[in-house]
């Protein structure tokens, strides 16, 4: 595959934080490529530099070395059209669900009336049509996170950056949200960079998994997950799935022993 067949190109990212107690190497020679419409999972424990990686990928931080190309363009400043979903929903509690989804629009000074229909469309996509005028405090954690996803999608972003978006939810809701997200992805086919430290989640959702190891953060291993789509509850019981999971477990273990 030629270089420009990839939608996102990350080349030799290295980042050093200068602190009072000395330099901290957060990322070391991180390189990877993501295809358009791919569900790309970054799997790694805490300390693998993922916050740094997120800030660099969204243009909020300039790396000490290396660069990022999105759709052929070098990332040099905060990307307006990246949709970020964090571990906590980060909604404005004084605004309604609809107003929260429109935050990127009002923040960028774009005309709200152009996006009203899109809000309704997204509410339907995430299953919250009846909650348009409710306040965040009236929603459960999973529902708030769905609003956060809708907000990330309002500007039709180049790609979605998701940092352990379901990590704060209980196990059952997390499962529900996993399949919800896959449904949304199958409809919209966004390019998704999904960060997690759940091996099961990674194998279930991903087209491709990249394993990172911590201190400093570096790429340990990458593998294509060639399981049939759509992925279902049955997928998790198949032999192939369990082999992928076992394989990923082993790869993560090795990095801990280093």
């Amino acid at each position: 595959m030629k270089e420009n067949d990839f939608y996102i190109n990350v080349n030799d990212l290295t980042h050093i934080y200068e602190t009072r107690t000395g330099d901290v190497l957060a990322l070391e020679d991180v390189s990877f490529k993501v295809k358009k419409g791919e569900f790309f999972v970054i799997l790694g424990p805490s300390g693998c530099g993922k916050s740094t990686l997120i800030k660099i990928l969204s243009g909020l931080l300039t790396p000490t070395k290396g660069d990022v190309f999105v759709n052929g363009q070098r990332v040099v400043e905060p990307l307006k059209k990246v949709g970020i979903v964090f571990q906590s929903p980060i909604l404005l509690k004084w605004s309604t669900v609809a107003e929260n989804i429109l935050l990127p629009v009002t923040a960028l000074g774009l005309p709200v009336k152009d996006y009203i229909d899109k809000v309704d469309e997204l509410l339907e996509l995430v299953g919250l049509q009846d909650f348009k005028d409710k306040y965040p405090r009236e929603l459960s954690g999973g529902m708030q996170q769905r609003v956060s996803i809708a907000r990330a999608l309002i500007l039709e972003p180049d790609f979605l950056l998701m940092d352990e978006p379901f990590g704060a939810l209980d196990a059952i809701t997390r499962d529900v949200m996993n399949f919800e997200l896959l449904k949304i992805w199958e409809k919209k086919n966004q390019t998704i960079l999904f960060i997690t430290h759940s091996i099961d989640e990674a194998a279930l959702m991903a087209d491709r998994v990249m394993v990172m190891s911590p201190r400093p953060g570096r790429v340990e291993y990458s593998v294509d997950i060639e399981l049939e789509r759509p992925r279902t509850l049955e997928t998790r019981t198949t032999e192939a799935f369990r082999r992928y999971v076992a394989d990923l477990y082993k790869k993560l273990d090795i990095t801990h022993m280093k």
Partner: protein
Amino acid sequence: MIKDFWYRYKQVLIPLITFIGLLVFWQMYVIVKQPPRFLLPSPVDIIETIREFGNGWFSHVEFTISATLLGFIAAIVFGVLAAIGIVWSKTLDAAITPILVVLQVVPKVAFAPLLFIWFGIGKHTIVIVTFLVAFFPIVINMTLGLTQIEPELLMLTRCYHMSKFKVLTKIRIPNSIPNFFSGIKVASTLAVIGAIIGEFVGSNVGLGYLVIIANNNLNTPLAMASILIISIFGLILYYLMVLIERFCMPWEEPEPLFQKKEEPIC
């Protein structure tokens, strides 16, 4: 039926009954022990005194209330402006904050006489004292509310290239509204105290002035009556703030004034 009534209103009924009980006990004690009036007047004495004083109250009550409110409102306006200034500019922060701390640390009782020497005796100086007392909690709480924002939210604002001003108006200020009201509630009680202190030091009218005069003349019923009226005013002002807070935050779960149905412990 009575049981339901009790459950619903017991949060208000219990203190009310306790209070009435204490009043009754107090009244009985005075009737039985007959202490001298200047030492311990009875509740009835105090009510009598209030009635006797009649129209005389008006000028004093009006003075204290207006001085308190003027100082309080000034504290709100300048408190909010100062907080916004501190958050907007690091230079302003470095310049203002030490002065604020000094203002807070110096006891106003010690400071007040100086103020009267500098600004002259009169209502305006009392308003200044009130202002100084109520100002600090408002600034502190407001500043907290303006800055206590999740880092991820600030990340989002940077992604959307939001200007500093936009972040202030769309994010910081709405975020600070609960803290604003915390500050105001505290400041309202302090404002009343400030006005009274001001009157103690340099006034010839007002409820605080009355307390001093009454004490000097051993007119304990009058002193206690004045204190009672001051307390009532303070209470009303405080709960007025609580009401306004409820009105301004439709997105918050309001704290129930009366207890709802008894909830089982899971």
